[in-house]
């Protein structure tokens, strides 16, 4: 049963419901006692997706188990705050801006002799457009500047250079990471510019990258899997975000994980800019492509099986006759245990060409996990040396820790961390 099916059956909503209804439904299931028929109908009367809204307050930040929308923007920052008080001001301002931007607001009318308070990219009223802004912190934030040395999450460290990586120093790491996701690139850009204008003194942009997903596939509410730039379905075996127990086991930091108390409700986030060498891939025979990945390009089914969601039986194929031992899906998820299970939330990216005139496009890989070591690092170490490496080149990204959620008005992003600081 897919995520959507579960949500649908649980909430008894029709398969024709829009994404907006689903999101609203999730909010209802998560907290509100009931959703009035009136409110429900009011939501359905319009196809205007700009009013879609993801709740901001919660135990966890939005943008992690929230279904991925069509547009993403990931921006890493160097924090220039000088001390703990500055950093608190940064987090508080950030919280205020994110709440406004994700819930919608109307900027004050401007005196035309002054620069306007808002860029106007979304018009005079800022609509939510399904926006989430998820804040994470990098290992470099946990230093003497802010008295955070002893509070670093156990597994947080700078992303190393894996054997196939060709990391660009201008596109890795960062003290702070913001992940913007919404229905449109414009909404993400508007939000970024708002935040930059409101927090000019405490952080500077280090690197940024935009990603996207096909809206036609997203509209199918998880009934179809997005294809990546290799032309393969990507994300078939992802975790089920509706399974709260699994989320607590594998995605969220919970008290049993041995992490600092402030980190409860957060999650390790990995971002990797993985260029696909698409020209070369497109000149590779189909059979070889499928052997490298381990799935049928057409159906997405594991090789030797019929349906996309069929579960490969590796025990019955010990020598890799059907699915090679070094096929991407077999290395990434050998289906033996929970070790290496992560919540993926990737996007496609495309930008420019290199000096050789080849396209710079590929996967903006994003994943979340409760334990970086048992999650991404385990998977990456299994994948090191895989045949797919001939066709991909990781260029940047970093390891971050997505902060716990903002529980209610008055709370702010990073509050538990700052209150634990010496």
């Amino acid at each position, binding site marked *: 049963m897919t995520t959507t099916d579960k949500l649908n059956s649980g909430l008894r909503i029709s398969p024709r419901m829009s994404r907006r209804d689903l999101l609203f439904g999730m909010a209802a299931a998560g907290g509100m006692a009931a959703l009035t028929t009136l409110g429900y109908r009011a939501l359905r009367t319009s196809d205007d997706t700009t009013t879609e809204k993801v709740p901001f307050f919660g135990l966890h930040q939005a943008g992690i188990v929230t279904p991925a929308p069509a547009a993403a923007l990931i921006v890493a920052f160097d924090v220039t705050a000088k001390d703990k008080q500055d950093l608190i001001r940064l987090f508080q301002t950030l919280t205020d801006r994110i709440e406004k931007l994700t819930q919608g607001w109307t900027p004050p009318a401007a*005196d035309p*002799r*002054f620069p306007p308070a808002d860029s106007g990219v979304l018009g005079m009223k800022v609509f939510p457009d399904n926006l989430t802004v998820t804040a994470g912190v990098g290992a470099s934030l946990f230093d003497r500047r802010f008295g955070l040395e002893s509070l670093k999450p156990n597994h947080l460290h700078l992303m190393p250079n894996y054997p196939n990586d060709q990391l660009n120093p201008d596109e890795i790491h960062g003290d702070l990471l913001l992940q913007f996701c919404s229905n449109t690139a414009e909404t993400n850009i508007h939000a970024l510019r708002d935040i930059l204008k409101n927090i000019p*003194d405490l952080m*500077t942009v280090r690197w940024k990258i935009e990603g996207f997903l096909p809206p036609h596939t997203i509209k199918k509410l998880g009934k179809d899997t997005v294809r990546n730039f290799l032309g393969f379905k990507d994300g078939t075996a992802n975790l089920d975000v509706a399974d709260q127990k699994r989320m607590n086991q594998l995605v969220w930091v919970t008290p049993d994980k041995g992490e600092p108390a402030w980190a409860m409700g957060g999650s390790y986030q990995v971002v990797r800019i993985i260029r696909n060498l698409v020209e070369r891939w497109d000149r590779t025979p189909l059979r070889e492509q499928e052997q490298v990945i381990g799935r049928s390009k057409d159906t997405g089914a594991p090789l030797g099986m019929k349906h996309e969601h069929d579960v490969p039986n590796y025990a019955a194929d010990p020598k890799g006759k059907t699915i090679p031992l070094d096929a991407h899906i077999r290395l990434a998820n050998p289906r033996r245990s929970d070790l290496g299970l992560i919540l993926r939330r990737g996007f496609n990216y495309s930008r420019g060409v290199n000096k050789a005139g080849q396209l710079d496009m590929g996967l903006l890989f994003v994943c979340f996990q409760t334990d970086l070591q048992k999650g991404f690092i385990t998977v990456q170490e299994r994948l090191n040396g895989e045949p797919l490496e001939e066709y991909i080149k990781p260029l940047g990204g970093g390891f971050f820790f997505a902060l716990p959620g903002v529980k209610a008005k008055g709370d702010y992003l990073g509050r538990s961390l700052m209150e634990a600081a010496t």
Partner: protein
Amino acid sequence: MRSLHRVFLTTCLLAWSVGACTAPSSTETSESSTSTTNTSEIAVTVTNTNCQPNAITVPAGKTTFVITNKSDQPLEWEILDGVKVIEERENIAPGFKQRLVADLDAGEYDMACGLRNNPKGKLTVQAAGTTEASLPSATELVGPIAAYKVYIIQEIDQLVAKNQKFTDAVITGDVEAAKKLYAPARVHWERSEPIAELFSDLDSSMDAREDDFAQKADDPNFTGYHRLEKALFKDNTTAGMKPIAEKLMADSLELQKRITDLPIEPKNMVGGAAALIEEVVATKISGEEDRYSRTDLWDFNANVEGSQKIVELLRPLVSKANPDLQTRVDSAFTEVNTTLAKYKIASGGFESYDKLSNQDRTDLKAVLTTLSEDLSTYRGTLGVD
């Protein structure tokens, strides 16, 4: 130098290669017509060869121009007082329209109509009884503006004197002497940039960087400081640079002459404080200004000094209108100057840009961005439209 002038120049240069920058024939210019109107909205269509109408008369005060680009390339439409740009709309794509609201004093102006070689249109602004009331703070600004004019004239006088030594060294072939004189001469240019760059022709011939030209450093139109910089610091020679040095000196004298007669507009002075810091944020912090000499920090510091001079002259007004703003701006300047001071060298001037640490660069970015945000409110704070 402001990028919008470069856009124009590049468009024209690129167009040269397909012959579109040649002077139009007489038949092509015969479509000129005259339009006099009392309404405040004026439609102007720019074709490949001219503006239509290419003679317009409007009353003094605010006029809205609706510019339609019917030529086949992106263009910039400008209202010029001689070579001084009064108002402009840049990058109007072919087939598109843009509006420009201009607040014009009575007088005769030119309109730049697309390619630089096209004949300029005439814009006549008639004095009218209904001009907008002068700005409330205009009288209070008289003192600071007069003092600023004196500052600019002194800076340009020094620019002329130092450029004389610098260009003499180039002409006599003394590479080492010329290298030493390069950065000190530019200081006065960078301090007075809000005014100096008002003359787009001189801004381009004196301070353009090779990026602004189709053939980059090899482009025959690439002249001025940065052409000499490349010869001295990269090629390590003055060979062939005599005409470039002579032109830079002639341009300096021309700039001095023009500035002497130039009335300084309140918005150019008040807005200049922000414009200088925007320059730093956009091109000095990145180290792209003086890529061969690596003397970027000299320019950086001179921009900051030029901005701080304006802030000083406006202090009585700003600290009255918005004391918090004045305090924030003061503390930002202190922070910038403290960081810059780390890179001062005993013999005067600054270390190579390469010495600027990543941490200092990041910190400077943050404080300068904050300063830009605050200085961008100066015009509004003083009611200068």
